[in-house]
């Protein structure tokens, strides 16, 4: 058991080290996130009532788009230099190795995205309850995005055209967006958000259970 844990941590460390050496891969989607959010006050006027209503929705939708842009980085360099083939040949289960890579993606991209989203929430002066709901939904939601995203990235890795990835993935992201927005909406009018949070947490558990297995299978198919 501890051997598996060691392997998990080794892959996690390796991916994080690689990401810190090549920061642009993960920082660029974050910059995209901030820039797109800044576009909205410029378009609607900085203190319009309309913008106040839209802010949390804008933050979530932009988070989805930025995640789609960041996803390719999970497997691309490994696919290009052939180390992904080495991973599939390793004597450890591919599911384990893949879940380490997905965890690394969330730590490198999901966590900073969460913090950046909160910062932009401050800039756009969201209310306290809304910020809290936004924080919780992003905390539960971004790992789901990384997990589901890993499946589709594994399927499309090495295919030409990045558009395909976003076409496949955005329909699968819609439930996360809907529940998060319902939670934020309820929070902004002072109602309980427990139901939405439970549903998001349920989806997270489901994704953690199934997504690494599916990603491993998809990778094997892609490399066959």
């Amino acid at each position, binding site marked *: 058991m501890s051997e598996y844990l060691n392997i998990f941590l080794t892959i996690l460390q390796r991916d994080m080290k690689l990401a810190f050496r090549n920061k642009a891969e993960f920082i660029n989607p974050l910059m995209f996130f901030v820039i797109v959010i800044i576009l909205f006050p410029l378009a609607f006027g900085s203190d319009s009532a309309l913008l106040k209503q839209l802010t949390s929705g804008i933050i979530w939708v932009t988070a989805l788009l930025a995640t789609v842009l960041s996803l390719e980085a999970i497997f691309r360099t490994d696919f290009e230099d052939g180390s992904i083939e080495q991973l599939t040949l390793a004597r450890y289960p591919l599911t384990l190795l893949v879940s380490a890579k997905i965890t690394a993606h969330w730590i490198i991209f999901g966590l900073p995205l969460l913090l950046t989203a909160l910062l932009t929430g401050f800039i756009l002066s969201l209310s306290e309850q809304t910020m809290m709901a936004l924080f919780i939904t992003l905390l539960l939601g971004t790992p789901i995005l990384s997990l589901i995203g890993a*499946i589709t990235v594994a399927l499309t890795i090495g295919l030409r055209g990045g558009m395909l990835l976003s*076409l496949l993935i955005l*329909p*699968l992201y819609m439930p996360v967006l809907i*529940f998060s927005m*319902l939670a934020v909406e309820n929070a902004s009018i002072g109602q309980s958000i427990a139901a939405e949070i439970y549903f998001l947490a349920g989806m997270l558990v489901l994704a953690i259970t*199934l997504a690494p297995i599916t990603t491993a299978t*998809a990778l094997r*198919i892609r490399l066959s």
Partner: protein
Amino acid sequence: MSLYKNLHRWFHQFASPKYFYDISHTISRWTVIICIVCFVCGLYGGLVLAPADYQQGESFRIMYVHVPAAWMSLFVYMVMAISGGIGLIWHIKLADIVARSSAPIGASFTFLALATGAIWGKPMWGTWWVWDARLTSELILLFLYLGYIALQSAFEDRRVAARAGAILALVGTVNIPIIHYSVEWWSTLHQGPTITKLDKPSIHVSMLIPLLFMVLAFKTFYITSLLIRVRTEILEYEYNTSWVKQLLGNHNNVTN
């Protein structure tokens, strides 16, 4: 035990492309007849015999296309996912072909359901489109189909394409109930189900019977067009084998 063996043998025989190519011709002949008969009966019953609805007037009659198309859109997705899964697990070529051939048909059914719904919605709700739960999940279903088709065309190797598509379809299957319930949480404008309440359906028998005919017609239409697609795909898949060469050779001789 011998029954099991026979079943097993039959299953493998049925899954062999050559056998299926021969037998599907016979099957599709019958299904096309059933399809035409059911279409005629269903359309006559629905458009002429059934009384006008006391609230919706004549425009409820579009239901005879809308409801079967909406049912088929989900049914075809299930067929696609299940046969994709079979192809993935047991490496049965025919299952891959069925999954691949189902996608465009299913997408068309989904589009038909959305289009007829919009046409019906204009006089009834006063708008072509509302962001209601069922409409939204049907639209997302259409995007799932289109994504599947896009993924299929991105691969050059058919084997890899079929298996990658199967994964995507299975992921979509897990997602469909979640998508359905997530959009259900919006307040819903769409009328509740009237037919699934089997003990006491809230639709009159004179309206129900044509609908059942139309459902059967749509189902046999799906089977027929699926078989035609599958037969073409089999020929493309197996163009290197001797039986296809022989078949095409004979055909060329006849046409020459």
